């Protein structure tokens, strides 16, 4: 692969900046030890939530990066081309169902979907897979069952979440799939710069893709975790309960809350269940939109896909979830 010209002109990292970064990091460590964050409750709260979001999500991103690198290096490109020949109305539901077999949270499905689209899977199918996997996988269904066990709304919540998740994933895949893969994906500069020569053995190319995929995703995850932890620290969760009785506004408020909290889809049912002032439709809005659209995912999408994609997903997820939950609120409240 040829090296792009701006790499030759781009200034390399100098020895002085390396030393500067090391000194700054050491300074940060010393400052943290001296400052005793336990005396500042909000600061400590921020660090704990920030740390736990990262420690939980990073291994999932890494597992996703392993899967993604394996797809790139070991699966022949023709495998996806044959799936892409299927008619689109068939592809999208298949992709959503395939998500069931992929038991990872939303952070792991983003790098995999990106790689699938790069390898020739129809972009709409890749997007549907990415959105469906975190809602329809068995672990998430099981945790929703446990969170609502013994409630009157049990079946509405469990089946409603699965059905609505399926519908929204297919609908958004349909809308987003109108573009071709080149327009949809934002190029990862490292992919092009990768100083890969085709003579290298497969395992070396594997480690190369693994490293770049992980670092590429991790920096957006870092951004999302920082913002989410800050909001969790500042904003009382009980703030939204004031709008519980307002129709439509309550649905939007719960979607907004899911967006800023950035919970893992395997645990969000327990938090949704704690908002007892809200009816099942508002709790469903939280459970369906959250795994498809939240702060950390927003950062991941913005880094992975073209500019328009985030906007498309934002409008499509909110519109379809709103329409679905409105129907449910008419029937069940």
């Amino acid at each position, binding site marked *: 692969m040829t090296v792009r010209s701006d*790499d030759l002109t*781009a*200034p*390399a*990292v100098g020895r002085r*900046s390396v030393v500067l*970064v090391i000194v700054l*990091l050491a300074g*940060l*460590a010393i400052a943290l030890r001296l400052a005793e*964050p336990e005396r500042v*409750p*909000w600061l*400590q*709260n921020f660090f*704990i*939530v920030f*740390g*736990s*979001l990262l*420690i*939980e999500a*990073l*291994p*999932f991103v*890494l597992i996703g990066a*392993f899967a993604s690198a394996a797809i790139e290096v070991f699966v022949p490109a023709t495998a996806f081309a044959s799936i892409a020949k299927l008619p689109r109305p068939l592809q999208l539901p298949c992709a959503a169902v395939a998500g069931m077999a992929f038991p990872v949270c939303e952070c792991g499905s983003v790098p995999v979907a990106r790689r699938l689209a790069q390898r020739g899977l129809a972009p709409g199918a890749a997007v549907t897979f990415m959105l469906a996997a975190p809602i329809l996988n068995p672990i998430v269904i099981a945790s929703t069952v*446990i*969170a609502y066990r*013994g*409630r009157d709304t049990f079946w509405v919540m469990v089946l409603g979440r699965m059905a609505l998740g399926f519908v929204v994933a297919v609908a958004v895949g349909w809308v987003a799939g109108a573009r071709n893969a080149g327009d949809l994906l934002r190029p990862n*500069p490292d992919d092009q*710069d990768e*100083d890969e*020569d085709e003579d*290298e053995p497969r395992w*070396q190319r*594997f*480690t190369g893709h*693994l*490293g*770049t995929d992980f*670092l590429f995703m*991790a*920096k957006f995850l*870092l951004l999302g975790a920082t913002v*989410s*932890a800050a909001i969790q620290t500042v*904003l009382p*969760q*009980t703030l939204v309960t004031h709008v519980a009785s307002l129709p439509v506004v309550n649905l939007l408020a719960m979607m907004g809350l899911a967006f800023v909290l*950035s*919970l*893992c889809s*395997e*645990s969000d049912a*327990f*938090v949704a*269940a*704690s908002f007892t002032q809200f009816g099942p439709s508002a709790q469903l809005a939280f459970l369906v939109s959250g795994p498809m659209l939240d702060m950390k995912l927003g950062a991941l999408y913005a880094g992975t896909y073209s500019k328009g994609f985030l906007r498309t997903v934002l409008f499509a997820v909110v519109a379809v979830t709103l329409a679905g939950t409105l129907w449910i609120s008419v029937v069940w409240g």
Partner: protein
Amino acid sequence: MSEPRRWSPARLLAFVVLAAWGALFWFMLLGGRSSLYLSNRTRWLVPTGAILLTLAALGRLASARTAVPRPANRSDGRVAALMLVPVVVLFALPPATLGAYAASRRSVTSGGGVSAADISSGAITYFDIASALGNREAMQALTNREGEQIVLEGFVTNQEGDATGEFFLTRFLITCCVADATATEVRVVDAPPGGFPDNQWVRVTGAMYPVGADVLIDAASVETIPRPADPYLSG
């Protein structure tokens, strides 16, 4: 191999970041800090992350010599520096858990994973009480055992308007990680005078009375304890 292989700075930089994160995960695992961030169900992520990060770092190092090395540019450097900040923060941070500050802004637990049948026999645990809050059947099972002596460990949160000798005993219930924590609060009455400060971990022994949707403990004794090894209830 026509060209000689040389170290690629861009690949070495990726190795440094992966290795630093790997070291952090080993530190969490061996230093027993996993329980400060993750629940029982997700704790497997720490050893998994440690091993995978180590493998990824070693793989990157082993393939860092290449025929066409690429210099690390400023953007590589910025990303690497950014990725090292949380590593340093989490290494340097003294072990800590959510406390009274978080209890005042997080939503309250409504139902854990314990069924009513499990509550009707055996010692009543904090997790049983968390499950009873917000679940009618489980609360009924708890009400059938009112007046029984129980022992609960948690930390103190004082709320405005609490009478002398009263405070809330609090414990956070987490499902995956601390970000999804919900507060489980039990009102303690008849505590020894003198008062207990916010965030002090205590062991309360006393008679348990479900009152409406809440649970109250008439304290026979309140003793201060160090923070338990598993500070969060895991759902």
